[in-house]
């Protein structure tokens, strides 16, 4: 999947992947796709919850051997 911006939160634990995602997404234009990479196991549930609550859109999610990759479209 193609992304316009990439945020790598590898090595960070809850809630930092969420807070960093928020910081990145805040500055993006609507419609931009942000790819978030996380190694925090909780992010598997946290990022989809964040996307739902912040009314953005989760385009896809991949589990790549301990690295969780999310594609978020800014609303």
């Amino acid at each position, binding site marked *: 999947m193609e992304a316009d911006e990439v945020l790598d939160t590898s*090595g*960070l*634990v*809850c*809630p*930092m992947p*969420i*807070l960093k*995602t*928020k910081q990145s997404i805040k500055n993006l234009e609507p419609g931009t796709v942000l790819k978030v990479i996380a190694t925090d196991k909780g992010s598997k549930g946290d990022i989809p*919850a*964040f996307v739902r*609550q*912040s*009314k953005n859109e989760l385009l896809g999610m991949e589990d790549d051997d301990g690295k969780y990759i999310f594609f978020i479209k800014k609303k």
Partner: protein
Amino acid sequence: MAEEEEKKKKICIIMTKGTLDAAYPPLILASTAASMDWDASIFFTFYGLDVINKKKYKNLKVAPIANPAMPMPVPNIIGMLPGMTSMATMMMKNMMKKANVPDIEEFIKMCKEMGVKLYGCQMTLDVMGIKEEDLIPTEACIGAAAFLDIASDADVTLLV
């Protein structure tokens, strides 16, 4: 637009504890809620006020006595020895640092930047002789009724 007029979700947390381990969860939950565009408030009361007390918040401690949950449990009789509180605190600080978790000072800064509203308990200030200027700037120092008024339409309320 109708969507923008929709009421934000709201979380109100009451923080009553002044230990390092207890300080993290409210700050984590409030900053995360704010990141999801929720309206987030924390009411600091009793010893919880230490978490926003400029003279104390950088030196919050972990109590080794009556704390069987530490990674290396310490019998109470050892926990009472001088230096054990510092040791338990250092252990926790190192553990958090290793996991790249920001310290309390940074967390409070992030909370403020993200719009989390901090409230001090006026009664605690009076009883403990703490001045409002000793605190990290809050929205206001308020009493029980005023906080309940804020919390009355919250979607999530928590006592820590």
